[in-house]
């Protein structure tokens, strides 16, 4: 367990010193959302209507942005090889790196989301649910993404391939995430959507590291 946390701490330290990943993801997220009022016009009702969906789609794309490098650097400098030879199981390596990725790119999105909701004229009732869905949803995005990142490791133009592989798998998260907010805004209970999101997280938590570890072993052969 301590070695697991050491790896998370190392990845966080690397991300903070390099500094680019966290800021790029959140800047992309903000810019992506800000583009919509320019595109669809400043009509407050339309913006309020599409706010939930726009924020969620932007969150998907932002989390995808840095996924390509989740294992890439460690693979290229030989660290991944050494990690696979350590006594830490490969599944734990994947989980630790995914957790660090989420802390660096997912958490800033959750913090920035309410501000963007204000920008898009979303009803204040939706804010709580928006933050809640993103808190449950963004870890799922990182987990599913880790499988794609492991599978495309070493492939040329891996980033594009990764998007094609992973975006379809993000659809359920998008549906339930945006659905929960819409339900709350329309005076319905968001509970069923949130439960389904929770179910997705509970499923992805053991399955994604397992699949990711298998793909990494293949990449290292």
């Amino acid at each position, binding site marked *: 367990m301590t070695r697991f946390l*050491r790896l998370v701490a190392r990845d966080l330290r690397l991300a903070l010193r390099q500094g680019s990943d966290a800021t790029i993801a959140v800047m992309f997220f903000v810019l992506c959302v800000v583009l919509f009022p320019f595109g669809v016009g400043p009509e407050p009702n339309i913006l309020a209507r599409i706010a939930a969906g726009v924020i969620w789609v932007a969150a998907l794309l932002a989390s995808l942005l840095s996924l390509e490098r989740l294992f890439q650097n460690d693979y290229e400098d030989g660290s991944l*090889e*050494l*990690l*696979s*030879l350590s*006594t830490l199981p490969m599944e734990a390596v994947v989980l630790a790196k995914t957790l660090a990725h989420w802390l660096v790119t997912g958490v800033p999105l959750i913090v920035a989301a309410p501000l963007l909701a204000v920008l898009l004229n979303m009803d204040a009732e939706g804010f709580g649910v928006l933050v809640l869905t993103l808190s449950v949803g963004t870890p799922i995005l990182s987990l599913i993404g880790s499988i794609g990142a492991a599978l495309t490791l070493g492939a040329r133009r891996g980033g594009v391939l990764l998007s094609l592989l992973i975006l379809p798998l993000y659809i359920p998260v998008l549906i339930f995430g945006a659905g929960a907010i819409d339900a709350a805004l329309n005076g319905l209970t968001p509970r069923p959507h949130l439960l389904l999101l929770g179910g997705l997280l509970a499923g992805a938590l053991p399955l994604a590291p397992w699949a990711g570890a298998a793909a990494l072993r293949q990449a290292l052969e």
Partner: protein
Amino acid sequence: MPVFAGSELTCLRGDRLVFTGLDFRIGPGEALVLLGPNGSGKSSLLRVMAGLLKPFRGQLSWDGVPVPDDPDGHRAKIHYVGHLDAVKPVLSAVENLTFWANLGGAPDPRASALAALDRLGVPHIANVPGRYLSAGQKRRLNLARIIAAPATLWLLDEPTVALDRAAIALFEGMIAEHRAAGGMVALSTHTDIATPGARDLHLDDFTPYHDEHDEDDMHEEDAA
């Protein structure tokens, strides 16, 4: 005392047979030097020994217990040095090393990291970020990793690449010390590393076609 052995190992890369019917045995304090021309499978054998590559046939064992029965035990016993140095550009040398020492289960990782850097003759680079290190310094850092945390078997793939003479001498001392303490070493090299009493393993003995005639036979088989 433990004995690491491999029997009837066959390694296949793609559809090319790298070596076949290879046996080896490393006992406490022994060293095995892998020799052979480029492409004869030295790196492949070391990767097979490390467990990074699955042998196509044959098996590795510790005291007769097959490695696949106890993969965690195997990983705890080995240190592998490959072609890449695994140095993070934004971490300082001692931070890089402390992480690996920690993962290797050293009781006081930072102290062992500093001691290891000292042993490799580069205590002054401790706080230098990885991106400012020269190739030789990175290699010394990588070699410091294997003494920062204890392991029985060292698997070293061309460990002296980029090292200067002084560093090679230090490294020879490290190997001798490790062997004197009952450790084992398997290494491949093109330069001369003094390893008194080491056994040589000529990999081209196990390559299925090491002269032109045999190669022709192989092509004929392929065609058939």
